[in-house]
């Protein structure tokens, strides 16, 4: 299929915006509402979509990000610049992942910014990792620990493909037994493991002497209880547990019927929508011919995510 060619230099698109699609980029193909997938741009390759074929050499490379691309069957898609948020929605799952709602509050509560040094375990599918790398770039670093050998290797591979491997170190070990592999250098530590209380000591030693922030993510309250106790025992302060959920609204124009309440002996009464009143003629809502009232509404979804995990934050301080 593809022409054999030299490995391409990877652009750092996940941490730096570019204008045009380049060979070696990871781009996001957007087909429509909540329908998208990532694609590795490569000379000579083709990608199948339900709208037809996309030829990388002619349709992608050199085009501006955000462009509309017409596929062979005539339908079209948009090609988007990758971001950690888009990656989170489209990455291949090797484990349950963290979504942007939790990632957002974690980033802010850990006070992460360019130059921050962060430790993370477990790496999992790399959803949070990509977001952390983006935030600490270009001068920070992520030390991420994963005890599953294949997942650790896959993560390394992905970071390399995405041009961010200079900002991250993946270590394959058990953080509860062997820690993060670094000491006294981290501004923040993040734990998403089954027994975080076993890693609190290691987290403390990974953090800078003068202090830092820690966060532990656990689905079960029992885990949270044990973790909070451990944090207290190790002298962490400002221990705080919270949860955050996302509520999405669909914007819809809704038409509600006006019930037929019949007529009184005299004219026009009781419906609340007085058609004889001239000031009502221009009213955007009433549509009395059809007996309906229209309005715009933000309608919640039928189902929403009710729980991801509890987030516990704390501070390590000198005094």
């Amino acid at each position, binding site marked *: 299929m593809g022409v054999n060619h030299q490995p391409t230099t990877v652009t750092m698109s996940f*941490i730096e*915006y570019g*204008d045009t699609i380049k060979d070696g980029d990871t781009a996001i193909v957007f087909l*429509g*509402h*909540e329908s998208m997938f990532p694609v590795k741009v490569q000379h000579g390759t083709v990608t199948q979509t339900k709208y037809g074929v996309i030829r990388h050499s002619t349709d992608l490379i050199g085009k501006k*990000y*955000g*462009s*509309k691309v017409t596929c062979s069957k005539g339908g079209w898609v*948009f*090609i*988007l*610049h990758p*971001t950690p*948020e888009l990656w989170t929605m489209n990455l291949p799952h090797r484990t349950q992942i963290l979504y*942007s709602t939790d*990632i*957002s*509050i974690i*980033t*802010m*509560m850990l*006070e992460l*910014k*360019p*130059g*921050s040094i962060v430790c993370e375990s477990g790496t999992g599918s790399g959803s949070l990792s990509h977001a952390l790398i*983006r*935030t600490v*770039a*270009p001068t*920070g670093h992520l030390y991420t620990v994963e005890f599953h050998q294949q997942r650790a290797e896959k993560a390394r591979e992905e970071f390399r493909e995405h041009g961010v491997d200079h900002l991250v170190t993946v270590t394959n070990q058990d953080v509860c037994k062997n820690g993060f592999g670094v000491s006294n250098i981290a501004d923040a530590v993040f734990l998403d493991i089954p027994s975080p209380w076993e890693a609190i000591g290691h987290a403390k030693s990974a953090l*800078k002497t*003068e*202090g830092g922030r820690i966060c532990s993510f656990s689905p079960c309250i029992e885990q*949270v*209880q044990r973790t*909070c*106790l451990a944090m207290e025992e190790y002298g962490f302060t400002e221990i*705080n*547990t*919270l*949860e*955050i959920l*996302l*509520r*999405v*609204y*669909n*914007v819809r124009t809704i038409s509600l019927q006006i019930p037929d309440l019949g007529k009184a002996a005299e004219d026009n009464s009781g419906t609340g929508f007085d058609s004889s009143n001239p000031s009502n003629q221009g009213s955007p809502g009433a549509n009395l011919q059809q007996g309906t009232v229209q309005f*715009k509404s*933000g309608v919640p*979804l*039928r*189902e929403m*995510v009710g729980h991801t995990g509890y987030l516990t934050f704390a*501070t390590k301080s*000198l*005094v």
Partner: protein
Amino acid sequence: MEASPGARIREGDCAVLKRGEVFKAVPVLRRRKIIFEKQWFYLDNAIGHIYGTTFEVTNGGNLQPKQDVEETTTETKEAGTDNRNIVDDGKSQKLTHDDIKALKDKGIKGQEIVQQLIENSTTFRDKTEFAQDKYIKKKKKKYEAVITIVKPSTRILSTMYYAREPGKINHLRYDTLAQMLTLGNIHAGNKMIVMETCAGLLLGAVMERMGGYGSIIQMYPGGGPVRAATSCFGFPKPYFDNLHEFPLSKVQSLLSGTFSTETLPSDPEDNALVEEESNGLTEEKQTSLQETEEEPTTEAPMEINQSEEQETMDINAEDVEFKENKEKENKENVREKQMKQWERRKKLTETAALLREKNADGLIVASKFHPTPLLLSLLEFVAPSRPFVVYCQYKEPLLECYTKLRERGGVINLKLSETWLRNYQVLPDRSHPKLTMSGGGGYLLSGITVVLDKGKSDSSSLEALKMEEPSPKRCKVQDLHC
């Protein structure tokens, strides 16, 4: 650009005082009396200590680092099993207000006062262990006055503003702010357009996430941008080198190509102060957050000029050539003013040029204004395939904004959302959500720009249809993670 490790409290810093869940931002100045949580003290002794240090307030109103005292271990004390026999008649505490005051005046430490209260409570030993715990915690909170001085950050300042002066930030709750920063992919190297009327808090948060890299163009209403909260962050000077500002009142002219610097917004000094006062909602009377609210950056040079003039006047007060010199001063003053105006015009032209490139990496909006006109105009300056996010305290304006954006085209992945936040008390056998929580933290509309297909009205309506969510049907759980 990283903050020095173990940053120390320095004079001139903006520091945040913390006691429990209560925060207050104050300037670190010598011999400046601070009131915080019913206590009066000076910050002088705190200077030189590391941020994060906890202090006690001594009798003289000075700060003293808290000694790490060993907690008096509660040996298996006497405790009851339930409260069936405990009557709350308000008479169980034998110490009176005066007794306690006397103890305080004697300089007895908080810990000792709490001990006294326990010993003089007739019902203490009947309380359950949990109730005793709760009682001690409550008394400690009241009498053990410890204050921690923390370094400002988005986390600290957004929590503080939401608790103390939510009106100033349009009730933007800190988790909503966190969502904005991530949804907007705010990171080092961006060219961001920021429009906010949140006292400069959003601007500061964006600057923190950009770490001094990239550039920011702040759009402002009225005479000048308000950056009161921004100065709290304590960013190093280089961060401000690539911070630009542009008046909203010139946006239409810029978009239509008729922009000129001939008519500038009126004098920044007057307008900025007015802007600050009317920044919050009318329901709240703003109490000054800091002892000194900082005026916009364009103000500073003018201030120095006036004080210089003042000095010169004092020195020459008795001088025979006083009048001559004064005339010279006036001429110089006028020249200075002209220079400043010229500089402002020059900056404005430069910023206009930056906007005209129409290649911003993102747009982030949080203001008291209706979002629709802001979005429709400011999106013109954003490159394709870039995220934008707009906050509104209310949902309805965002419904309209969403509709107008669909009509305009050139945007995909539109999402209207809010976050639900709940804090927990976690204690052995006593874990539960906290008793109160925020009723609402505002709403967000986010999306991604794409190349705008102007001209073909058919394709844009087709596009809108394709981008529209499918009619409500059963959603799989996987699809719910938005």
